[in-house]
């Protein structure tokens, strides 16, 4: 047996490669981190999704310095991310992390005190408010930020502006209407050749304020829906494919031919999905848009705690499925720096941020409502 020459080569190569990998990794991260995070301290860890990155650059120091964490609805997430980005650019010492995990998750995190503010499209129920106030030791404030439309995005080749009415919509999501060329759908869309394809319903698989807005509307317009499924952040869907978050539902509608799902307006427009035209309470077929969303918020009574619903509005040109979205904060917080930063951000967003909101298709608050909201923000203070 010839004694083989021992092959040290490959082992050495491997060790070298791994060392290089580790070093490169740490080095790159080191450089990266220094540039990305001017503020000290990492974010709190929460059992939730991905964190938004900071766009901050170096620059002159600003009076506001804080690191804020928020979590909640995906409904307004595209807007909040833009607001955060702009605000951080103007206030480089402030870091705001927002995680879109759904309204239910947002309320939970807020109650568990793992985030500084929550976000939800469904106002907290009384039990939830009691629990949160007990946990945080202070009153819970609902700050409405914008109104958004829940649209029905669908995937049917060549068919634009599909018309639906409340009864048909409920039947589709109940699973009683199963085909696109069903008589009821065809009756609403004369002159359009509907394909003989089965309807694939898409809904949310996570706890969602968007679901709450949508199912709340369905419960209002369809007694069958109210009896069998009901409204809420999570319901037992009779049929349909599940998507995670507003973006998940949009993705599934994109992937699945013949599907229809409910998403917030900007998700549909940004993903290139066609939206259905819905018949509102006044009997008109309304195209979802900034104008029709704003029209829904007109003439609504606002209670003192600012928890309200604008669903199925009576306005002539109002889009029927509209919801407000709230930021949840405690009236009193411990950290003064955080209080200042939060108040500044919220005030800025409600005032200067309206242009961005409109660009993305969210309807800003009416003057009256904005005044009420700003007053609430003002009342945030330290213990």
């Amino acid at each position, binding site marked *: *047996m010839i004694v083989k020459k021992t092959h040290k080569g490959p082992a050495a190569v491997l060790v070298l490669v791994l060392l290089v990998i580790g070093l490169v990794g740490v080095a790159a991260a080191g450089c990266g981190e220094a540039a990305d995070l001017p503020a000290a301290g990492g974010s709190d860890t929460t059992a939730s999704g991905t964190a938004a990155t900071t766009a901050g650059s170096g620059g002159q120091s600003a009076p506001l310095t804080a690191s804020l964490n928020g979590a909640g609805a995906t409904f307004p997430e595209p807007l909040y991310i833009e607001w955060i980005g702009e605000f951080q650019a103007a206030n480089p010492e402030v870091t705001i992390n927002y995680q879109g995990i759904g309204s239910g998750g947002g309320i*939970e995190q807020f109650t568990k005190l793992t985030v500084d503010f929550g976000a939800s499209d469904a106002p907290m129920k009384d039990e939830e408010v009691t629990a949160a106030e007990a946990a945080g030791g202070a009153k819970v404030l609902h700050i409405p930020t914008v109104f958004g439309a829940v649209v029905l995005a669908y995937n049917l080749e060549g068919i634009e502006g599909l018309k639906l009415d409340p009864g048909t919509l409920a039947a589709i999501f109940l699973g009683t209407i*199963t085909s696109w060329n069903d008589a009821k759908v065809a009756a609403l869309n004369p002159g359009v050749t509907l394909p003989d394809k*089965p309807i694939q319903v898409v809904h949310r698989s*996570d706890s969602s304020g968007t679901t709450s807005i949508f199912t709340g509307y369905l419960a209002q317009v369809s007694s069958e829906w109210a009896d069998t499924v009901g409204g809420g952040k*999570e319901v037992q869907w009779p049929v*349909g494919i*599940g998507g995670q978050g507003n973006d998940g539902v949009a993705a599934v509608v994109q992937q699945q031919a013949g599907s229809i799902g409910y998403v917030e307006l900007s998700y549909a427009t940004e993903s290139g999905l066609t939206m259905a035209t819905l018949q509102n309470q006044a009997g008109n077929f309304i195209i979802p848009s900034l104008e029709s969303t704003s029209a829904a918020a007109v003439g609504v009574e606002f209670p003192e705690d600012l928890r309200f619903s604008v669903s199925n509005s009576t306005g002539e040109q109002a889009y029927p499925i509209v919801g407000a979205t709230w930021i949840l904060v405690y009236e009193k917080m411990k950290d003064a720096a955080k209080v200042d930063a939060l108040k500044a951000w919220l005030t800025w967003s409600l005032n200067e941020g309206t242009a961005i909101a409109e660009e993305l298709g969210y309807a800003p608050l009416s003057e009256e409502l904005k005044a009420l909201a700003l007053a609430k923000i003002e009342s945030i203070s330290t213990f």
Partner: protein
Amino acid sequence: MRWPRSNPSAPSRVISTTKSASPWQRRGVGRRADSLFVILAASSGVLILLVLAWMVVSTTGTALPVFGSQGISFITSSEWSPSDGEFGALAFIYGTVITSVIALLIAIPLSLGVSLFLTEYSPKRLKTPIGYAIDLLAAVPSVIYGLWGVFILLPLFLQPTADFLAKYLGFIPIFKGPASGLSYFGAGVILAVMITPIITSLCREVFATVPNADRHAAYALGATKWEMIRQSVLPRGRAGIVGAIMLGLGRALGETIAVALLIGSAVRIDVSWLRPGYSMAAVIANQFQEATGDHIRALVGVGVVLFALTILINMGARALVWRFNRI
């Protein structure tokens, strides 16, 4: 220089522990280092056992409150409503089993075909490229399978096939529409692609151990190729083939990402294979990030059930393959 052939059965300890002339051993340094080294090496091995034990204890412990509050309904009920505190995982168990069954139905004939091809039919120059291709399939990470599955396989193959099946075979309950590519079927197909390389490589090894004499014997008696395979190759490898299939099944049961992207994320039990559903691994991956408190415990509990199922299948498979392959 040819070293005198040593007796393989003679313990090598004979040489190293005698009172030899080595200065190391006389000084005892070598001995002490030897004992230390054995302990180090043995501990590394024991580490695996400890980790496995800790795994079982830690996860079951975390999930225990939910097991307690839900009782047996955790695995017999399909009511999964975290906000109400209802946790019944039956829908996920059902989905896991169904997708794995579909995957096996597709993967077994394919794997047997490929492995037979490679050992019996293939000309020499095709063996290496096809072997490489199979290894490549095995090496592709599952998230890439998921990405490819959603954006390419779904429109090109899954959706048309599902529509076709629903249209012409829709009277059979498992093919009832409305059909979606994002369904048990879609997940099953991508699982099939993922487990085929595993079953193929194992079957290859199994078939390669059949002695050529057996093959020639069959030929000498006038058998055609297929008859030879049926007589000499397949019967001998039966235990190994079953073991390979069970290992593939074990992999299919635990596959998470590709299934999460293609199964449709619907918390319900559906008889039709062409409708969306959920699997145990997929629900953990999808719901974990926004879950809190009891919901997380319930997801851990689902993981424990999955672990138990996979372990049973894997241990059975290993026993079979072991019996076949080893001493």
